């Protein structure tokens, strides 16, 4: 950190951070603590009775096929959004990184999906894929000679469509960051590689990609947070977690159990588990990136 640029002002820094710290403690850390506490109880919706059950909520979750299903679905979903999303965005960013006329236009024309909310993305894709009357099922039925695409009776399909919608929405964001990262790769490196006889593919993997690793890891993290937490609106609008439990992401199951089944104990336990998973993944990511960065240097 910086040194003390304004010595003598003992209280000022505390004043400056006070509002943020207040909000963080009152609305984030406090409730989180309480959530952990509540996860060790079961209670009635109207609060007429609360019973301490220790780890039972957690044990129940881990032995519940529905919950494990939710975990699997969430990871599949996140994997799709991250892998497909980042690959596509990187490829597009590469294309955009050329010195060609009209790049400004293309940049704008490809980043705007960032401004679309997940909910709206969900609404639009839901209508495009509506079983009996939607555009895409119609096209598919023509191309495939009559196959009736109906995500309401096909869980895998539903998950695929939902993943595609979520990925589409994030493309803009990923492209901006990749583009910025790419523009930081010094031309001299790439030119040197060209002189050395390296093809564009090799140059990409040996030089560009490693230099992108801060951006990549940042985007990995952001996309993960997105896939785990910010797509609730999309799921609620498109599938309500269905058909069956096919698109019941962890965050959706949490909402269902907490707010529809009125089972606060289980929902609190689920909250903590998600937190744990995210933190673990983030820490692992951090370790890998730091190590890679060291190697690179």
């Amino acid at each position, binding site marked *: 950190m910086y040194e003390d640029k304004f010595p003598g002002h003992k209280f000022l820094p505390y004043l400056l951070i006070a509002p943020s710290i207040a909000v963080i403690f009152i609305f984030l850390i406090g409730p989180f603590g309480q959530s952990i506490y509540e996860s060790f109880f*079961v*209670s*009635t*919706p*109207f*609060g*007429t*009775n609360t*019973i301490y059950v220790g780890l039972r909520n957690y044990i129940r979750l881990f032995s519940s096929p*529905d919950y494990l299903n939710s975990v699997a679905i969430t990871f599949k979903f996140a994997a799709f959004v991250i892998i497909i999303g980042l690959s596509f965005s990187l490829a597009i960013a590469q294309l955009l990184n050329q010195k060609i006329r009209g790049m400004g236009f293309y940049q704008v024309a490809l980043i705007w999906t960032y401004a679309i909310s997940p909910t709206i993305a969900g609404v639009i894709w839901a209508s495009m894929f509506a*079983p*009996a*009357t939607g555009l895409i099922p119609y096209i598919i039925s023509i191309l495939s000679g009559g196959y*009736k695409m109906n995500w*309401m*009776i096909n869980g895998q399909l539903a998950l695929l469509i939902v993943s595609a919608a979520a990925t589409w929405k994030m493309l803009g964001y990923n492209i901006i960051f990749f583009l910025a990262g790419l523009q930081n790769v010094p031309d001299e490196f790439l030119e040197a590689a060209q002189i050395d006889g390296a093809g564009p593919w090799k140059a990409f993997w040996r030089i560009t990609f490693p230099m992108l690793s801060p951006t990549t890891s940042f985007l990995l993290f952001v996309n993960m947070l997105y896939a785990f937490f910010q797509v609730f609106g999309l799921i609620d609008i498109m599938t*309500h977690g*269905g*058909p*069956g*439990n096919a698109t019941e992401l962890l965050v959706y199951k949490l909402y269902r*159990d907490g*707010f*529809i*089944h*009125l*089972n606060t104990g289980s929902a609190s336990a689920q909250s903590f588990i998600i937190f744990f998973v995210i933190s673990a993944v983030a820490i692992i990511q951090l370790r890998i990136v730091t190590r890679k960065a060291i190697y690179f240097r």
Partner: protein
Amino acid sequence: MKLRKNFLILTLCLLLSTGTVLAQPVTITFWHAMSGSRLGVLESIIEGFNATHPDFEVKPLFTGTYAETLTKYVAAYPSKTGPSIVQVYEVGTQTMIDSDAITPVYQIPGMLGETWDWAQYVIPITNYYSVDGNLWSMPFNSSTAMLYYNKDLFEAAGLDPNKPPTTWKEMEEYGEKFLASGVVDHVYSTGWPDWIFEQALAIHDHLYADNDNGRSGLAKKVVFNDDFGYMIFETWTRLHDKGIYIFGGAEYSANTAFNSGQIAMLIQSTSSLAGIIKAAEFKVGTSFYPRFEGYPVGNSIIGGGSLWVTKGQSEEELRGVWEFLKYLGQKDIAIQWHKGTGYFPVSGAALKTLLDEGWFSEDQAYLTAFLQILSGKRDTPASTGVRLGPFVAMREDLVSGLEKALAGELSPKDALNEAVEKMNLKLKDYLELYGK
């Protein structure tokens, strides 16, 4: 002299203004989940009440789906910022009974020094919301399930449009004829499969859960995992495998297929009737929910919602609430509600008037629903409907099980058993929290 005159005028003004202040209507907040066309009818009924009862003002608020409405009600409870009246779906009945947050409606007249004749309401409807013969919530939007069918498609397939199937065996036979004729790709679908399953049990006087369907005490386990229950699952799976039954999803999407002529029959709530008649471009027929031949007769069960009154209101508010509830049960209002939405009128007198004025002979379709509940049993727990605490979650388990059976992941029997296991666990948990 002048001073005195002014003083008199001033006092008069003050008195008048106080009078106006005192005459401010008492506000009754009412949270509900009625949307679409139902909302319009509800709002006009409320306007009528407010106009004829200047001492009170009912303020309706659409708070989302039934589930969302209940959630918001639960959340508002600790800070006492909830409404005077809340509409809760029938599956939330046990939760509300156990909530300690409401005043059972049968107690209200006594609290206000009035008496009331509860027998004026239609019995199969009030039975659902009664505990030990006393009405706890006011039935408001009640419906049951029946069979809708497309008369035009029947003709096209060479079937008599005035002879719809009455048994599941006939459903299968008619189904095969439909498929053979090539008129449709699939023959029937249903709304809310979980509710349709409950209907199948109740129609044959089969209990859903022990303790008299949860009515004489909190249910400890479900009791339909027997040959009869397996038969239901097996029949539906077989019909699905033959392509006769198409599973339309957990809620209303089956209606679209029916309205657009893609399927010939639909087992759905009676409250869909108005919407279907409006949207369909073919002759709509209705009939009773199909039966399994040779099994006992029960009754179809009431679904929908009822109105609950929050505890701890002032006497004025309670009076307003009670006036509103009485108003809703009045013959003319009940008729207005029924004609606008298709829900059953809760007033017996309304029913009689509708029959007398020939409302049903104009369109037989509306009559079917009534005949079904009025012609069945009304005094057995199995025919009255089941009350369960964790009902919402249990229904999801049942649908899950059905889906697994239909998808062929499990045999119908195993799928049902798996669902039953999950459901019983939930009952056990509920008992732990509420058992005395």
